[in-house]
């Protein structure tokens, strides 16, 4: 599938979808009826970014299993690329989440389930990168990273569940998003954004993978020449 759609086409496709999504969000979808009003618009980016981040980590999870079964470095590269991108998207989630929070509720930070889950997710996958940097030998590094990527991904839904359903204080304060049902115009705008974000992820994965592979080959050559 990836061979069918070239990288530049992916970026263009992603760009079109994202801009379209933006236009739809602001011009087509109605202003949110609930108290959040105009600031709710950020939802059209915030949620797709969040879901795309999770997709990236999910791919890293699959790549980790792939590496453990085959010992093929290409899985390790895929895992690394996906974790880095997922981390980038997660940071964006937090930033957009904080902006939304400020606009909607007047606070920059609230210890509510989604923000805190993504905060922990950031720490988790930063730990992945730290782990990688602490192992010099390549095969071992890839193996440990794979084990950690598997454990980490399992922990993400568990963490979300814990922050959402196990009340922290004994009197939980739950901040809900807008209504669960979405009007069709909102839905379309949302889906377009979602598609755009996913295409962007795929495009970035392809580009980063190519860079990683190139870097590995250069290192191999250097090593061969050097000794």
């Amino acid at each position, binding site marked *: 599938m990836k061979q069918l759609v070239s990288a530049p086409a992916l970026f263009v496709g992603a760009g079109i979808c994202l801009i379209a999504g933006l236009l739809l969000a602001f011009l087509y979808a109605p202003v949110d009826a609930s108290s959040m009003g105009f600031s709710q618009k950020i939802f059209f980016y915030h949620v797709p970014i969040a879901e795309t981040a999770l997709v990236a980590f999910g791919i890293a999870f699959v790549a980790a299993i792939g590496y*453990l079964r085959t010992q093929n470095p290409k899985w390790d590269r895929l895992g690394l690329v996906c974790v880095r991108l997922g981390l980038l998207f997660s940071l964006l989630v937090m930033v957009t989440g904080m902006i939304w929070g400020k606009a909607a509720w007047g606070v920059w930070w609230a210890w509510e389930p989604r923000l805190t889950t993504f905060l*922990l997710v950031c*720490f*988790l996958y930063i*730990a992945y990168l*730290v*782990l990688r940097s*602490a*192992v*010099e030998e390549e095969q*071992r590094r890839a*193996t*440990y990273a*794979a*084990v*950690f990527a*598997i*454990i*980490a991904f*399992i*922990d993400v839904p*568990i*963490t979300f*569940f*814990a*922050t959402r*359903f*196990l*009340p*922290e*204080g*004994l009197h939980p304060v739950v901040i809900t998003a807008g209504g669960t049902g979405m009007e069709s115009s909102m839905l379309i705008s949302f889906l377009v954004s979602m598609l755009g974000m996913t295409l962007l992820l795929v495009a970035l994965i392809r580009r980063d993978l190519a860079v990683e592979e190139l870097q590995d080959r250069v290192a191999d050559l250097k090593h061969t020449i050097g000794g």
Partner: protein
Amino acid sequence: MGLRQFMAILRKDLIRELRTREMLISMILFVLLAMVIFHYAFTVKEGAELTYFTGGMLWVTFIFAMLLGLNRSFAQEKDERCLDGLLLCPVDRVIIFLAKTAGNLIFLLIIQVVAVPVFTLFFVERSYVGDLLPFLVVLLLADVGICALGTLLATISMNTRSRDLLLPIIFLPLIVPVLIAATGATTLIFAEGAGFGGLLARVLFLLGFDAVFIVAAYGTYDFAIGE
């Protein structure tokens, strides 16, 4: 055969620790000191009430004490090259994991036997004898989660360059769900008292966490410990 090997590893670790008492003494002292430090850290305001901090203080202390202990228990295997001797044996790697986890669990329980009464003396106003059984159930379940995850991660971190420094970074983000559930339940018991009903969600959560991560460790331990 597996059971004989499990008992052999467990017995070896227990004999070694009870003979030298290195880990136990350090961990117990650390835990007691931490409690004293918590008092000075939190009672800035005259007559400040710490009741709703108790669960948190207790579990933070145990988790950090465990970090010390885990580093120690694997450092020994590594330093004397005994890990090679262990890996030469015709033993299923998972049995090594289970035995090491059991050993760490026993050490943690020993420390808690000392620490909990002292903590109660220092910080808990209410008598929770009526809730003792639920308290112990929560304690045990959280301990299992901490030890299982800790043993898996310590196996990885002991083979890296930064050893002691790495373990907290990869361990703490993953253990947050346990922290949430355990502190919630413990604080509830210390502050207000609750039968099983009030704690059911958290107890089930801990049970689920333990089950999931023991299975995950079962699948990945081979890779974590091998070369």
